[in-house]
C-alpha cells in the first residue's frame, strides 16, 4: 500500500492557485472599459475565428483569458444558462449578476474538487441604459468574484496595462476614443522593461456593447464585433501613436 503524504490545505490551495496563475500569466491581456457610448472590449488575438470576446445575451458580453478550451466551454455554458432563463422567464430576467454568480460557483467547485483548476480569468459585462447602470464582474480561477467599476483588465500583464490606461480613460469617452485608449495601453503589455509593441488591426479583436442598440441599429442585441476595416479607420483617425 502506498503511503499518502500529508499536505496541508493551505499548501494545496497555494499550489493550485500558483498553477492557475502561471497558465493565465502566459496569455495576453484583455481590456473591458465602460464609456459614454457603452462598453468596449479590446483584446490582442491573432486568430480571427477563435474568439476571446463573446456575446452572451441582449446586453451581456463575455471576455476571457487563459486556456481556450476551458473558457470556451464556460462561454457556451453561459449562453445556455442565459437562453434557458430568458426563454422560461423573460428576456429582462437575464442579468450579468445572475450569470456571474453561476460562473463563480462553477469555478469555485472546479478549483477545490477537480484534479486541476481552470486556468482562466473572466469578465462578465452588462451595459445599462445609463453609465451608472453598467455592471462589470471579474471572475478568477478560484471562483472569487469582484464587482468592478469603469474598467477591468485581465490577463498576464494586467497591472502594466491598467497603469497605462488610468491616464487616458474617463467615463465620457466615445467608442473610438475608448478603443484607441485600450489599444494604446495594450501595447505596453509586455515583460517588464520591454519596449511597447505595435498592434495592428489584424491581431486585435474588438467588440462593443451599444448602450442604445434599439435606436442605433434597430436591434435589442447590444453586442457587435468590429470588423478589421472599421477598426483600421478608428485607429488611424485619431493619429494613433
Amino acid at each position: 500500500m502506498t503511503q499518502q503524504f500529508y499536505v496541508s490545505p493551505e499548501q494545496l490551495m497555494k499550489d493550485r492557485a500558483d498553477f492557475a496563475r502561471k497558465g493565465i500569466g502566459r496569455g495576453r491581456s484583455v481590456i473591458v472599459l465602460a464609456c459614454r457610448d457603452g462598453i468596449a472590449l479590446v483584446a490582442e488575438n491573432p486568430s480571427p475565428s477563435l474568439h476571446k470576446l463573446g456575446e452572451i445575451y441582449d446586453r451581456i458580453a463575455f471576455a476571457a483569458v487563459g486556456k481556450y478550451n476551458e473558457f470556451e466551454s464556460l462561454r457556451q455554458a453561459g449562453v445556455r444558462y442565459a437562453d434557458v432563463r430568458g426563454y422560461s422567464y423573460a428576456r429582462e430576467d437575464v442579468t450579468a449578476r445572475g450569470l456571474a454568480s453561476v460562473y463563480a460557483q462553477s469555478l469555485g467547485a472546479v478549483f477545490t474538487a477537480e484534479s486541476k483548476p481552470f486556468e482562466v480569468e473572466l469578465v462578465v459585462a452588462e451595459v445599462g441604459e445609463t453609465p451608472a447602470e453598467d455592471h462589470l464582474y471579474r471572475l478568477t480561477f478560484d471562483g472569487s468574484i469582484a464587482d468592478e467599476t469603469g474598467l477591468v483588465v485581465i490577463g498576464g500583464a494586467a497591472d502594466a496595462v491598467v497603469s497605462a490606461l488610468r491616464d487616458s480613460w474617463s467615463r465620457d469617452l466615445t467608442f473610438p476614443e475608448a478603443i484607441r485608449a485600450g489599444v494604446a495601453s495594450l501595447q505596453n503589455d509586455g515583460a517588464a522593461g520591454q519596449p511597447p509593441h505595435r498592434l495592428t488591426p489584424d491581431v486585435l479583436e474588438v467588440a462593443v456593447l451599444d448602450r442604445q442598440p434599439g435606436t442605433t441599429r434597430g436591434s435589442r442585441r447590444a453586442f457587435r464585433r468590429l470588423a478589421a476595416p472599421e477598426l483600421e479607420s478608428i485607429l488611424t483617425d485619431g493619429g494613433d501613436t
Partner: protein
Amino acid sequence: MIPEDAAAIVSRAASTSFAEHLGRDHPELLPSNRSTGIIAPAAGSAAGLAPHATTIVSLTFSGGVLMAGDRRATMGNIIASRHIEKVFPGDLFSVLGIAGSAGIGLDLTRLFQVELEHYEKIEGTRMSLDGKANRLAAMVRQNLPMALQGLAVVPLLAGFDTERREGRLFSFDVTGGRYEEQEHHSIGSGSVFARGALKKLWKPNLDESTAVQVAVESLYDAADDDSATGGPDVVRQLWPVIYTVNSAGARRVPERELEEAALGIIGRRSVAGREA
C-alpha cells in the same frame, strides 16, 4: 455547469441546438411537453378549447420576400382577439407566421427565435436558410401528438437566402413535412380566398411597396369571405402585420404605410361599388 465525465462534456459541446439542450436538461420547457395528460382521441377534438390563429399570406418580390398576417384569433364562432400578431421575425434574415392553435404557435415561435439566436451565439455564424427550415420542421413534428388532438399549428417560413441572394418560402405540414413554395403561398382558414387573390394580383419582380399593397389586398379578400379572418379595422385603427425581408434584413412595415394601403383598397372598392 460543473463538468461531469469527459465524454458528457464532449457530446454537450457538440450540440448547438437550444431545443436539444432543453430536451435533455429541461424537458418540461419544450412546447410539446407542456401538455399535462393526453386527452384520448376518442373524446373528440380539443380544437374549440383555445384561440385559433387564422390567415397568413407570403409572397416574393424583387430582391426579397414578404409575410403578412391579419389580426384576428377565433374560438369557435367567437372572436377571441382583434389585436393578435401572428407574424414574427425569426432572426435578421427570416420571418415566420403561424396558423392554427395560437398558444402553441406562439410558444413554437419563441422556441424557434431562441434556437436561431442560440446557434448564432454558439457557432459564431448564422444558420443557413435551409437549416432554419429543417429546424422548424423538426419542431412542428414534435407537436404531432397535440395536432392529433385537434391542436395543430402550422407555420410558414420566409427568409432571404444570403448564399443565393434571393427570397425563399417554406410551408410545413403537421407531420414535419417541409415544402419549398414558389412565388407566393398562404396558410390558415382564409388561405383559399387569399390565394385566389394572390394568383391575380402577384406578378414577377414586384417592388416592395406594391408587394405590400398586394398582401393587404389579398388579406382583404380573405376577410371578405372567411369569417375567421379579420379585415382592416378602421374604427380601431388596426391593420395587418407585415414584415419584409431583403438583403438588409427583416423590417416591420410601419403602421402609416399599412393604413395608406388599406384605406386605398377600401376607397377603390367603394368607388367601384361592385359586389366583389
